[in-house]
């Protein structure tokens, strides 16, 4: 068990393994997206309050879920990397960050596109949007720190520590923003999630979230392969791979 883990945690063995896994996750992502879009547009009924605009939640809510989920997973990899000095874990954390940041950005933009027809304003300081914005800052901080440290080992470990500090802070930040929000706004409009939401709506969001999840795994594996190639540039296995692959 122990030996197995370390075998696959070496870049040289993980690189081809990840290569084999990517198509499967990509295919799953495509299938789930098709199913999710079908449910979102063809089956889910029109919302009697919000009309068709509510359909934005089928991207907004899954994107927001993924943005938070990816941060937690990233911190998990970071903790593993710090605890066991495992290079692969740190690379996984690094590979997840841009995807998480993209989902955060999408959650923000789609949230604001949803808010314009509903609230009449592109941006409302509602607790969820504000927390997403802060989450985006956390992602950007992580990426900026990693990219400004030249030594890969230090970059890995510093980034990992920052991710852990961030993940401890996320609930505190979320709570404080919520507190601030209830103090300053009498009533907040609850985004999309009506009290008795139709099952089909929930199904649509779940399918889209699963699709995003599979997509994230596929993309993170692609990125971790890139990181391996760039870091291990001067090793024999990458050189062999690059010349063999082109021939």
């Amino acid at each position: 068990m122990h030996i197995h883990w370390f075998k696959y945690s070496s870049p040289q063995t993980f690189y081809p393994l990840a290569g084999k896994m990517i198509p499967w996750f990509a295919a799953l992502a495509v299938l789930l997206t098709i199913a999710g879009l079908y449910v979102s547009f063809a089956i889910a009924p029109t919302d009697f309050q919000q009309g068709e605009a509510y359909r934005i939640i089928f991207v907004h809510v899954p994107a927001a879920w993924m943005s938070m989920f990816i941060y937690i997973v990233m911190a998990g990899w970071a903790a593993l990397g710090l605890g066991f000095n495992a290079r692969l874990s740190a690379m996984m954390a690094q590979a997840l960050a841009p995807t998480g940041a993209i989902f955060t950005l999408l959650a923000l933009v789609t949230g604001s596109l949803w808010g314009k027809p509903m609230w009449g304003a592109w941006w409302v300081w509602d607790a969820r949007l504000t927390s997403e914005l802060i989450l985006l800052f956390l992602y950007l901080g992580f990426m900026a720190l990693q990219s400004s440290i030249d030594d890969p080992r230090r970059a890995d470990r510093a980034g990992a520590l920052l991710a852990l500090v961030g993940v401890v802070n996320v609930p505190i930040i979320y709570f404080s923003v919520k507190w601030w929000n209830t103090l300053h706004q009498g009533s907040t409009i609850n985004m999309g999630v009506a009290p008795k939401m139709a099952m089909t709506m929930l199904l649509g969001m779940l399918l889209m979230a699963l699709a995003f999840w599979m997509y994230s795994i596929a993309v993170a594996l692609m990125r971790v392969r890139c990181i391996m190639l760039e870091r291990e540039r001067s090793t024999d296995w990458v050189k062999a791979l690059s010349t063999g692959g082109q021939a």
Partner: protein
Amino acid sequence: MQWASWSAFFNMGGYAFYVWFSFGLTALCLIWEVLALRKRSQQALRLSQLLAQD
């Protein structure tokens, strides 16, 4: 089916811009990410190929 016609579908009850912009932007970002990564890995391979020839 929810929609009377294709044009009703595209019209999205008058919210076409908001709905299609959201979905379109999401699709665009995700596809761009995949393409950018593919390019990055090709570049990395090309560079190490150059290194290997030295």
